[in-house]
């Protein structure tokens, strides 16, 4: 991937942050932890609020609007935040900050912060697919072999068959994971249908092979399973219930 110039390093004071426009026009947030620079998406994934208006203490970034928080190092959500931040690989050359965009796997809610070698093994497993609007990825009863990571676009879910269906949510953020029955035991078949609503790019990953990779690195496997259980709970439970 090609490097893009974002800003001069000297523009960002220690423990400070600033919204910058990268080459090509993308708006990004640059933060300086004092010893290192980090670049993440400029706008809060919750409600279109510029993150540069929030708080940054050198480690934790807080959006001032509803107090969503992230670890600036990984982009991982903290506290009440429901979605990670898209994070960019940073290089500093001659006092200038450059970024490389991250793949969807690295941005995603399941895999941020796991060991580098596990991430590259999973990346090698991922098949990139492009689907046009209207494409059906799976239907109830289909084998649940693969799970998907959304890179761009929008995917909608329906429960039920034929005329008797009801919407069961939708995915629209880079890095969101669906079809996760493929990562569960004793869940061989789909219980919903997944339909692409607008042109979308997906990573398709075989569940069994991914589990084999995670079993070989139990620390990373534990992180992924912990996140997966939190993700499933979001679709089941009323949060706030103590």
């Amino acid at each position, binding site marked *: 991937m090609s490097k893009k110039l974002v800003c001069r390093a000297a523009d960002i004071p220690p423990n400070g942050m600033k919204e910058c426009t990268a080459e090509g026009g993308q708006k990004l947030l640059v933060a300086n932890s004092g010893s290192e620079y980090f670049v993440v998406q400029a706008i809060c994934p919750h409600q279109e609020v510029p993150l540069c208006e929030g708080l940054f203490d050198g480690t934790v970034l*807080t959006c001032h609007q509803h107090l969503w928080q992230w670890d600036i190092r990984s982009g991982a959500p903290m506290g009440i935040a429901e979605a990670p931040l898209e994070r960019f690989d940073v290089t500093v050359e001659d006092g200038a900050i450059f970024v490389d965009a991250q793949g969807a796997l690295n941005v995603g809610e399941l895999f941020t912060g796991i060991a580098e070698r596990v991430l590259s093994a999973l990346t090698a497993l991922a098949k990139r697919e492009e689907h046009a609007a209207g494409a059906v990825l799976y239907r109830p009863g289909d084998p649940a072999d693969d799970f998907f990571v959304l890179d761009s676009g929008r995917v909608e879910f329906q429960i039920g068959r034929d005329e008797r269906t009801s919407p069961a949510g939708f995915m629209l953020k880079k890095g969101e994971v669906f079809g996760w029955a493929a990562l569960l035991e004793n869940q061989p078949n789909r219980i919903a249908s997944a339909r692409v609503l607008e042109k979308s790019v997906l990573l398709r990953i075989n569940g069994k092979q991914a589990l084999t990779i995670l079993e070989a690195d139990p620390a990373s496997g534990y992180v992924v399973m912990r996140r997966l259980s939190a993700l499933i709970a979001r679709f089941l439970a009323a949060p706030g219930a103590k």
Partner: protein
Amino acid sequence: MRIQVNARNRAYQFDALPGEKILYAGLRAEIDLPNECGTGTCGTCKARLISGSIEDGWPQAPGKKFLKGKDEFLMCQCVAQSDLDVEVASFVYATDPGACQLRALSGRIASTRSLTHDVIAIEVALDAPCDFDAGQFMVVSAPGVPGMRGYSMVNFDRQTKRVEFVIKKKPGGGFSEWLFSDKAAGAQIELLGPMGKATFYPSLAKNILCIAGGTGIAGMMSILSRACQERYFEQFKGDVYFGARTMKDMFYLDELSAFCTEFPQQLRIVIALSDEDVPAAAVQRYPRLRFERGLVHEVAKAGMQGRYQNVRAYVAGPPPAVEAAIRVLLLEAKLTTDSIRYDKFS
């Protein structure tokens, strides 16, 4: 009208009454649609119209600056004109079991009482009893008066037919000017509520910290009232910081003093005056209260050092005061976001 809301996790269906705002129809059906101010300002309740037609009750609502596409709208301001399919780009769940359910209420302004030169308390006699949680608010409107405003309840009682609100006079604020006029006393008003998540339950089992600027004290009074009724401060500490410009802008000091008298060891109430030195007469008159000069978040920052263990913080007041206090709580006190509850009025 039948309304279907497609959320990130699932879809919900509910019915709206003729003229009923979509947000309130959903909350009434015990679906916790995204919302915060309920009065067109914060933009939290934005949704996308997929099919059907709506009428926008307030096309100039300030919260519309958060809308992106032409098909987006504020659920708190719009009424369905046909069956609707709408989309909300967040996870939506049923309201917590046991939470007080939002209803349309009506009542009469039984009395108004001047608290300062620009703040009054109004007492509303409701036509039917209602329940709310300490720290919640209601959206109030009067027939023939433009606008709806959210006001926190000051009192706390179960199945009460009486609610008390604190109102600050806002020049040009249609509703507050009407309340300050002689037409308000005895007038019939409409209320929607309760709403708001900055609530206190005794099962919290934590020390509580309240930081309030101006009329932001209203919800804190309800929280303190409930905590005192349940003798919460026999087990847990309470720290209250209440700020205003001068003593002329201060109110409820007798009531706050009375709370302190009940729990002199565990409940500490500090009055922060930003624009004048603490008058000796105030200290003499309210020996139970502490007085400091300074902005309320700075006084709280100085007074709370080393006292943040096992704390739930409540913050309310004008937006700059709330943001400054939250900054202190996150950056200085290192509280986690889930231990902060706040109400921002704009």
